[in-house]
């Protein structure tokens, strides 16, 4: 005859190993999650510290630089007011000193071909100075060839005459200084 055993426990009995395993898994997950959180925050903090050092010095430099820039601008404005007339005068003198008559004469020697004669030539040393000249040529095509060469120099033909012997023209043009 089989012996009958009665379980008189109030609650159900727990499987110890399974419970311990569950607890271990839960604790491990807990430790892992908190570890990740702490690692994240620590990384952020160290980055913040490095950034604060860098940005702090940059913002200090920026403030100092802005202050210096403002002072410099004010001083430059004052200097400009005081020195601009003398500076402009000196620059105008240098510009006129750089003006080369020889370069213009060389140019005219190049463009005036054989059979042409310059009857009058005026060169003015001015920023918008134009070279005024009267030329005569044996044939009209010689004059036309000269016009072609002078076209890039804002050529203005003031007068063109024809006599029995020659063709005459009064013209002016503008030439930039080659020395500049």
């Amino acid at each position, binding site marked *: 005859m089989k012996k009958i055993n009665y379980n008189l426990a109030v609650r159900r009995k*727990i499987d110890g190993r399974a419970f311990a395993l569950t*607890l271990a898994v839960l604790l491990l997950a*807990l430790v892992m999650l908190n570890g*990740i959180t702490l690692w994240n925050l620590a990384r952020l903090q160290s980055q913040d510290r490095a950034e604060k050092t860098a*940005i702090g010095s940059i913002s200090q430099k920026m403030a100092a630089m802005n202050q210096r820039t403002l002072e410099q601008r004010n001083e430059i404005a004052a200097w400009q007011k005081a020195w601009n007339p003398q*500076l402009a005068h000196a620059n105008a*003198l240098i510009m006129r000193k750089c*003006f080369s008559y020889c370069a213009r004469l060389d140019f005219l020697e190049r463009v005036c071909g054989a059979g042409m004669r310059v009857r*009058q030539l005026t060169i003015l040393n001015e920023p918008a100075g134009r070279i005024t000249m009267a030329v005569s040529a044996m044939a009209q095509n010689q004059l036309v060839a000269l016009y072609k060469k002078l076209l890039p120099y804002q050529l203005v033909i003031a007068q063109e005459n024809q006599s029995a012997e020659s063709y005459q023209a009064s013209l002016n043009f503008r030439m930039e200084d080659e020395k500049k």
Partner: protein
Amino acid sequence: MKKSKLLVTALLGVLAVSAAGCLFSFVYVSWQDLSRQSRWRAARDFAQQEKAAQALEREYRDWRELPLRLQEFRRDNIFTMDQFAAFRRDLDSRLAACGLRPPRIDLNFGGIRGNIRKVTLKFSAEGSYRDVKKFIHGMETKTKMHYFSSVHLTPGAETVKGAFLLEVYLGE
């Protein structure tokens, strides 16, 4: 049994809070990264501002040194009265060397501007085109502040007649 259940429930609760915290830390780090990027962008702008400030610094230095430069310019280029006398003699000898003999040279002392007086010399001379050009070239290559304000050339049969207007600057 009840205690164990409670323990597991509590652990699960703590785990949920930890998971939320972990998630939040990731979101927070990403957000901080974004704002850090914008701060670094501002720092990069600083580099550009620094370049502009360096350019301004150079301009500032130029302006600070301008009075000295103008003084040097005057010293090196503007005639003193003694130098002008020497220049006048040199002009005569240069004209003679080029075979040009102007009948007269008119001098006109003009007004003063910035402590510099303009003197205009007006003269005409006749010679070969080569000599006239040689004279012009000789005057152009001199360093002191004088220049032809106008040159008017009229060719004759063999020679060229030149009317010259020369400006010379004297320091007061």
